[in-house]
């Protein structure tokens, strides 16, 4: 543009100066200068555009990709999880001990576990049962103890497993496998890596599908629904039993995740499904029960945070349906559970309280909390081994030490596998989709996540469950952060064809005169330097 303007100016100058004869000589000099100037400026324009402009434009429109540790990420998929675990064996007869140790080695040869079985030195043969229970065992280990105090295999409160003398070794090994959850761990990993594939054990699959999705924060929301507040007054403070019975369990799980507990009261919400009267007892069968959650869910208000929410609903039975139960295969119960969602239970008030509005109904804390705690255990993934091994009565909402150990292992495997999938798919997507942007922040998060994932494996090999859990949490969180970072999409809705559609109309009209003037510049240089 400038060049053309200058052209006009000089032509005006030429016109005016042509009227004056004495300026003719100046005119020639001017003309020469003018041509020099014009060609020089054209050369400068061409230089700026071609030498500085195009590389700069190229650089600036390039998709930003912070280098990622691709090789380490692909290495992750070839590395196996190996969990070092100590198993201590104690029997009265050293040759029996040796035999059991041998069997343990053959049994756990081809699993995720690298078992180190040894004769127990932690206890003495004359220890009482109470003393055995208090034996201190290292994190993640198990101790098999032969004792006459039990009739069958019993899992203790700590990390002890008791078995009577002359127990069939294969049964003992099966119980040990259940307690260490080898099947659940490998199922959890396989199902995440290859959706559709899973363990052949239906119970293991059901338990996995029931577990809430992995997250480092959860909400627990207890909702008490009183559909007829005008007929029945309920006097209950949910926070007291929650603190009394649920909080100790949550404290135990603090390394696994943060749980924030809330409670609320809702009124006048109808159940929608009509219960059936069965000899004076009202029942909802399982088929009807599956339709009560969705209408309830609309009113619960899970929209408070993006963390997964575990719902517990205590539904005070309307006066006309007391007593109300769920019903399946001729069995009655007050509670039901939905996978990954939470539980619902009916609270049946005394029929007398319904009509006397002066006195309010005071429910029993324990009978409300025990279904909640039972369902909470299932939802967070506490393994149910009661079918295979007898459990020593615990009478507490908290976990037995070996249960907590297996929760740790499960969470580590779950979070590590999740991070690994996220990282490998991110690396693969970058190859498949050319427009994904990786800014420095994301690149750093990926590197951090890969390092943490490698640390998880190293800690597991040393049997350090707590450290491994910490690292798996970091790996999981940073990989999630990297994958879902908003900047990844910065260019995704701006594909290449659109890029050219925008830039070509913008730059081509400018480039044409510049490129065409290059011919004149070339001629001018040849003339000037007499090449």
């Amino acid at each position, binding site marked *: 543009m400038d060049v053309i303007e200058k052209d006009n100016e000089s032509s005006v100058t030429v016109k005016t100066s042509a009227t004056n004869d004495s300026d003719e000589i100046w005119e020639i000099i001017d003309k020469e200068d003018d041509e020099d100037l014009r060609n020089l400026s054209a050369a400068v324009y061409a230089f700026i555009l071609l030498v500085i402009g195009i590389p700069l434009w190229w650089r600036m429109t390039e998709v930003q990709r912070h280098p990622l540790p691709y090789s380490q990420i692909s290495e992750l998929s070839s590395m196996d999880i190996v969990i070092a675990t100590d198993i201590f064996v104690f029997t009265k007869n050293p040759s029996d001990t040796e035999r059991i140790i041998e069997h343990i080695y053959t049994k756990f040869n081809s699993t995720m576990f690298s078992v180190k079985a040894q004769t127990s030195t932690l206890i003495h043969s004359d220890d009482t049962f109470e003393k055995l229970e208090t034996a201190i065992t290292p994190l993640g280990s198990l101790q098999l103890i032969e004792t006459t105090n039990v009739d069958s295999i019993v899992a203790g409160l700590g990390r002890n497993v008791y078995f009577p003398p002359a127990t069939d070794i294969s049964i003992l090994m099966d119980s040990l496998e259940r307690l260490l959850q080898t099947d659940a761990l490998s199922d959890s990993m396989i199902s995440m890596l290859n959706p559709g594939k899973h363990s052949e054990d239906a119970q293991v699959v059901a338990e996995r599908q029931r577990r809430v999705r992995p997250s480092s924060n959860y909400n627990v929301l207890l909702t008490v629904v009183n559909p007829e507040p005008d007929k029945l007054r309920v006097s209950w403070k949910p926070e007291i039993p929650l603190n009394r019975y649920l909080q100790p369990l949550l404290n135990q799980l603090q390394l696994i995740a943060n749980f924030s507990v809330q409670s609320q009261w809702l009124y006048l919400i109808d159940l929608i499904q009509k219960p059936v009267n069965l000899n004076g007892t009202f029942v909802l069968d399982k088929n009807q029960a599956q339709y009560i959650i969705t209408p309830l869910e609309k009113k619960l208000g*899970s929209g408070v945070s993006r963390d997964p929410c575990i719902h517990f609903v205590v539904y005070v039975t309307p006066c006309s349906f007391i007593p109300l139960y769920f019903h399946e295969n001729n069995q009655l119960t007050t509670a*039901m559970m939905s996978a990954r969602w939470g539980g619902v239970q009916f609270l049946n008030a005394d029929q007398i309280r319904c009509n006397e509005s002066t006195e309010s109904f005071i429910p029993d804390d324990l009978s409300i909390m025990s279904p909640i705690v039972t369902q909470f255990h299932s939802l967070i993934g506490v393994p149910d081994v009661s079918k295979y091994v007898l459990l020593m*009565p615990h009478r507490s909402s908290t976990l037995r030490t070996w249960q907590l150990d297996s929760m740790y292992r499960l969470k580590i495997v779950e979070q590590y596998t999740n991070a690994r999938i996220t990282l490998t798919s991110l690396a693969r997507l970058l190859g498949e989709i050319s427009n994904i942007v990786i800014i420095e922040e994301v690149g750093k998060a990926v590197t951090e996540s890969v390092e943490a994932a490698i640390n998880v494996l190293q800690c597991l090999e040393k049997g350090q469950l707590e450290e491994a859990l910490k690292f798996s949490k970091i790996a999981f969180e940073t990989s999630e952060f990297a994958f879902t970072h908003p900047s990844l999409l910065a260019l995704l809705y701006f594909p290449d064809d659109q890029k050219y559609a925008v830039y070509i109309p913008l730059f081509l009209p400018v480039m044409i005169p510049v490129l065409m003037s290059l011919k004149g510049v070339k001629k001018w240089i040849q003339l000037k330097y007499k090449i």
Partner: protein
Amino acid sequence: MKPCLLLTLTCLHFSNVFVCQANHSNNWAVLVDTSRFWFNYRHVANVLSIYRSVKRLGIPDSQIILMVADDMACNPRNPSPATVYNNADQQLNVYGDDVEVDFRGYEVTVENFVRLLTGRLPPDTPRSKQLLTDEGSNILIYLTGHGGDGFLKFQDSEEVTSQELADALEQMWQKRRYHEIFFMIDTCQASSMYEKFYSPNILAMASSLVGEDSLSHHVDPAIGVYIIDRYTFYALKFLENVKLKSRISMKNFLGVCPKQDCISTVGVRTDLFHRDPAKVPITDFFGSVRPVELTFNFLDISNTPLQ
């Protein structure tokens, strides 16, 4: 004897359907109208009608993401303000009094749509604008608007291409953000939008094949514009007869709007879907039935240690 036998067989067939059902743990719906301006009234009516249907069948508002690009109910040209009708008999106001629009007006952009699907939203995004699905979620995606071969226009100013959509779905699959997807689109040359899909477990249905236009159904003389598209009209007619407990399969739904009704040919893509549509209950995508199990044995927690 004969009818009795037939009845038993049907029951067997249906019990089979029920066994397949417990595969997913929750249902989500992403319903998008991409076009604005008064003459596109029918697209808003389309999306709101589908919204009403899935809501009636039990998907809660917290699990429905509704994107509506223009506000027809409040348009000055609307002769009856605060209403949107999908039929000239004006029996049903689909705008109703409980419509929860998550993305409205100029928020309905390709960027927001792709961000929603892939979960790459700014950290301060409210929960109602997030698709918080996991590997157990079935998602219904319904799109309506103006499109062409390989693209769907958003807001009269930008478009999402079939490749971008396929890539977004692949990223969802990689991140295990869905169990199965039913993809439904009502636009011209609609089938071009699902042709590029390459991720598994997607069942897709489109109102027209490539090279065909999708047509609107009828005009309401009082409103003065076409008020619903043919494909959505017949799909809704089908859905109206579906109850939460009815055992209608997806195969029946894939047969809606034959050529004599739609004029365009309805396109279906089943090669990415691993189940037989005849064995998939329609409520797997259009409703929400959570799997339940009764708890019979409770833990004894009476001696929980005091803190």
